[in-house]
């Protein structure tokens, strides 16, 4: 599973995406990402699935486009 990351999160992951396997839902994803990248715990970000922000725990499938979005700062 490919998770897209943006903005200041690219500093933590060292890339514009991170790959993970066998993640059933977003809560599990966050838990495992925070284990592997402890700096993530201090970051503020939203999770988007298929370009829509999700705020509750959400089931994931291989076809999902998952992304982690730090606070927007366009304009």
């Amino acid at each position, binding site marked *: 599973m490919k998770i*897209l990351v*943006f*903005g*200041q999160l690219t500093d933590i992951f060292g890339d514009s995406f991170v790959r993970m396997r066998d993640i059933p839902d977003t809560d599990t994803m966050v838990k495992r990402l925070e284990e592997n990248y402890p700096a993530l715990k201090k970051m503020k970000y939203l999770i988007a699935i298929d*370009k829509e922000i999700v705020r509750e725990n959400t089931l994931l499938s291989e076809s999902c486009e998952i*992304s982690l979005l730090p606070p*927007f*700062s*366009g*304009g």
Partner: protein
Amino acid sequence: MKHTLKNIFQHGAIPASFVGDSIAKHSSKTGIGAHSIFLGQVRADDVDGKKVTAIEYTAYEDMALKKMHEIREEIFARYPITCMHVHHSLGKVQTGEICLFVFTSSPHRKAATEACNELVERIKEELPVWGKELFTDEGYRWKINH
């Protein structure tokens, strides 16, 4: 069948002449009485003694265009406006250059002005775009919108 969304992104700064050309294109729309324009310009901010020399913009483009499409539909539904144009830079924009161009037009001024204000607020709050403030010394800071 994939729906093609209107692009708002362009590489680098938005030239002032582009704004002039956009305005000129509206002279044939003789129902328009008012244009409201907002421009974002990159500031040479001081951050702990370091000077911002440019902002480098990145975006989650697909999501930003989808969101912008929704915002556009909502604004058109709410205000009696004739036209709406949004342009946002990606990549590096030097201080003093234009990075955002929002342009609304309507028969009477209230609609254009209010629609333009709301568009700017929503673009800054809702579009997945990030600015990286680059310092003279090659350091940087991620921009924060207030």
